[in-house]
């Protein structure tokens, strides 16, 4: 049946990606929240030290990519539900896609500059 440019062209894959990324983001939030609760002092130096360890960098990057994938599926769903004129939908989706891409690259650059 009808398939446009969603993430994977399969409803099942999109559904799995959304659930998997949601769980990953939930775990990430718990990790970051635990740091704030457990850290003796929350200063720029301690934060920088915490964020500069490689496993956390990788986990953060994974979380950023998860947000991007999760958001894209959600935004695509919203667009195909509520925006019926094709031109407006296309403009909206391109804007969402570009913004998501920019955020991912920007996050990457920030992470590796720490």
């Amino acid at each position, binding site marked *: *049946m*009808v*398939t*446009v440019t*969603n993430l994977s*062209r*399969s*409803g*099942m*894959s*999109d*559904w*799995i990606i959304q659930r998997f990324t949601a769980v990953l983001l939930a775990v990430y939030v718990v990790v970051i929240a635990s740091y704030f609760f457990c850290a003796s002092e929350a200063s720029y130096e301690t934060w920088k030290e915490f964020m500069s360890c490689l496993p956390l960098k990788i986990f953060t990057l994974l979380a950023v990519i998860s947000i991007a994938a999760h958001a894209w599926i959600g935004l695509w*769903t919203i667009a*195909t*539900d*509520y925006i019926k004129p094709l031109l407006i939908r296309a403009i909206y989706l391109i804007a969402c896609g570009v913004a998501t891409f920019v955020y991912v690259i920007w996050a990457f650059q920030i992470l590796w500059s720490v």
Partner: protein
Amino acid sequence: MLKVSIYRYNPEIDSEPHMKDYQVDTGGKDLMVLDVLSLIKEQDPTLSYRRSCREGVCGSDGMNINGKNGLACVTAISDVVKGNKPLVVRPLPGLPVIRDLVVDLTLFYQQYEKIKPYLINDTPAPAIERLQSPEERDKLDGLYECILCACCSTACPSFWWNPDKFVGPSGLLQAYRFLIDSRDTATSERLADLNDPFSLFRCRGIMNCVDVCPKGLNPTKAIGHIRKMLLQQGV
């Protein structure tokens, strides 16, 4: 006297739909909404609505009664009207209105047709009939009872936004009825037809369908089962 407000629209004479008020003498009885409509039709023969069996079997008189979809013939006034509030009757939401309470169900039936609502079995037919064990037959309970009244699908926002692509709760309940039938051999093909981002996966699980089903069925559960079958097939 019961105050009744009914959605009226005759495209041949009305430029737009409007609500029309009526006063109905119920004789102090707790009538069904369909009985009230019959009394109104005696006052005003121009009122149009569908009805047939008047006992919740045919599914013809699905309509929106005080904000909730249901069958007029099995909905008592006391179930929907509290105090002196009026009885408000509108057509099923989300579908084109042909006239008054009569909606065009073409999109609804097209979705039903899409799920191939019949047994597919290419193996040679036995001499008498294809047998089922009592356990296999039990799996169809809660599915085969659907009367296609469209109350569920027209209560579903996903169906409102994409009635041409999302099969809807009614069609998906029927899809599962054939997927789980031991006599059907087209399981893979049926699942493949549902594995796009719209047909099944537009269901967000808000359960409006379960809330309104006049037969007490659970399309959300059936959709969950289909999703599980797709997952087992895909992983």
